[in-house]
C-alpha cells in the first residue's frame, strides 16, 4: 500500500548504508532532486547509484556525489560538459564506474522488475563493454547475455500521483522512471501534485500503484496545496 509522505525527509528516512539506489532522470528532466537532497541530509553512504548520467552541475545527483556518499556509479553517460563533480571523483580514484549502454541499462532494470533471469541483447556485441560476457548466436545474429539490475530503492520524479500511488509523467521527463519503479524493493516518488483517487484516467496511468511505496508532493504546487 502506498504511503503519502508529508515531506521528502520522511520518504527516504530508512535508506540504508550500502544500498543500491536507482535514480530517475535523463539529465535534469525527471531527476528527483528533492528526494536526493533529502537523502543527502539523511546521510546514507557507501551507495551504489544507478542512473543514466553521473550528475549535472552541482545539484541533485551531483550534490550526492560531492557529499561522498556514492561508492559506485552504474550509468551510460557520466562524461558531460557539466559533470565536473563526477569527473573529479573519478580521476581521484574515489568512485567506481560501470558503464552500460543506455538501452541495456533500461532493459536490465526492466528484467529485474519483470522477473526475467537474464536476456540476450544485440547491443554491445564485439565491443569492450561486452568483454567477459557470454555471447551466443541465435538465428544468425550475435547476442550478449545481460543480467538484471535490481535496486533496493528507486527515487523517481513523476508528475502527478493519486492517493493510491498511480503515476503519470510529463513529456520526456518520463524516461527511466516507470522502469526503475518496477525494479526496486522500495520505490519512492516525488511528484508536483497528489490528487484524489479516481482523478487519473485508468487508460493513461503509466506506473500502476502496485509499484509505488511512497509518494511526496514537492515544489510550487505542493507548497500551495499545503498553504490552502
Amino acid at each position: 500500500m502506498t504511503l503519502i509522505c508529508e515531506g521528502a525527509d520522511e520518504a527516504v528516512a530508512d535508506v540504508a548504508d550500502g544500498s543500491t539506489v536507482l535514480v530517475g532522470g535523463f539529465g535534469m528532466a525527471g531527476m528527483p532532486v528533492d528526494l536526493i537532497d533529502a537523502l543527502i541530509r539523511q546521510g546514507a553512504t557507501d551507495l551504489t547509484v544507478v542512473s543514466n548520467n553521473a550528475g549535472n552541475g552541482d545539484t541533485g545527483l551531483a550534490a550526492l556525489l560531492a557529499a561522498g556518499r556514492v561508492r559506485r556509479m552504474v550509468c551510460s553517460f557520466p562524461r558531460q560538459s557539466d559533470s565536473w563533480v563526477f569527473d573529479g571523483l573519478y580521476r581521484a580514484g574515489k568512485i567506481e564506474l560501470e558503464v552500460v549502454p543506455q538501452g541495456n541499462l533500461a532493459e536490465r532494470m526492466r528484467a529485474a522488475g519483470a522477473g526475467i533471469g537474464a536476456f540476450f541483447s544485440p547491443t554491445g556485441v564485439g565491443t569492450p563493454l561486452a568483454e567477459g560476457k557470454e555471447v551466443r548466436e541465435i538465428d544468425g545474429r550475435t547476442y550478449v547475455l545481460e543480467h538484471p539490475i535490481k535496486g533496493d530503492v528507486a527515487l523517481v520524479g513523476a508528475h502527478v500521483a493519486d492517493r493510491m500511488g498511480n503515476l503519470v509523467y510529463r513529456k520526456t521527463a518520463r524516461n527511466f522512471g516507470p522502469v526503475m519503479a518496477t525494479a526496486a524493493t522500495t520505490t519512492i516518488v516525488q511528484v508536483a501534485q497528489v490528487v484524489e483517487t479516481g482523478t487519473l484516467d485508468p487508460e493513461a496511468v503509466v506506473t500502476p500503484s502496485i509499484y509505488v511505496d511512497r509518494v511526496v508532493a514537492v515544489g510550487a504546487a505542493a507548497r500551495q496545496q499545503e498553504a490552502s
Partner: protein
Amino acid sequence: MTALDTLDRTVEHTDRGPLSRDEMAEIVARDIPPGSFVNLGIGQPTKVADFLAADSGVVLHTENGMLGMGPAAVGDEIDTDLTNAGKVPVTELPGASYFHHADSFAMMRGGHLDVCVLGAFQVSAAGDLANWHTGAPDAIPAVGGAMDLAIGAKQVLVMMTLFAKDGTAKLVPGCTYPLTGVGCVDRVYTDVAVFRVGSQGVTVLETFGISYDDLAARLDVALRRLQD
C-alpha cells in the same frame, strides 16, 4: 533510400569544393525516404532535421522517450521536461507520443526505426563503427545510447569529415578505436564523398570536390565504383 537508390553509376562532383557541414546535412536529408522514422544522433546529425522537407512525413525519434519530436524550442517554448537526447529543449509535433526508456530502446533494438544518423571517429570498410571512445587511457568512458543506436535501425548512416584534423583518414581498413558496433554502418556521408560500406567492401556513390581516383589515392581502403 531515395536519391541514391536511383544512382546507377558513381557521380563525381569535381566542379565544386567539399561539402560544408550544412551541405552534408542537406545531402543526408535528401536521402531519407518520406515517411521514415528517424533517429538523429547528438551533435552534427541533429542538423539534418533542418533540411527535411515540411511535407516529408519524416517522424523523429529521440531515445529519451518520444516520437514526433519537433525543432529546438525557443523562448517561451522552452520546457525542461521536453528535451532531445542531447538535453537540448525541443518541441512536440502533432501525432507525437511519449514512452519510457525501456520501450524507447525496445523500439530501437527491435529494428523499427528506418534510419539512424550518427557521428563517428572511425568507420571500417566492413561497416564497423567507432564513435564512443578514443581509447585514450585518461578518458572517462561514456557510451550513452551509441551502441544501441548503432545496431538499432534498418539503415545506419554516419556523418563525419573524411579526414581528421591531422589528415588521417577516418574511413579505415579496421577501426583502431574501441568499437561501438560490428558491421552496423550502411553508408558514410563525408565532406568529400558518400560511401556504401559493409561485407561487400566500400563503394563510392558520390564525390564532392575530388575525383574518384584522387579519393582512392588518399585512402587505405579498397574502393569500388558503383556498377563496377
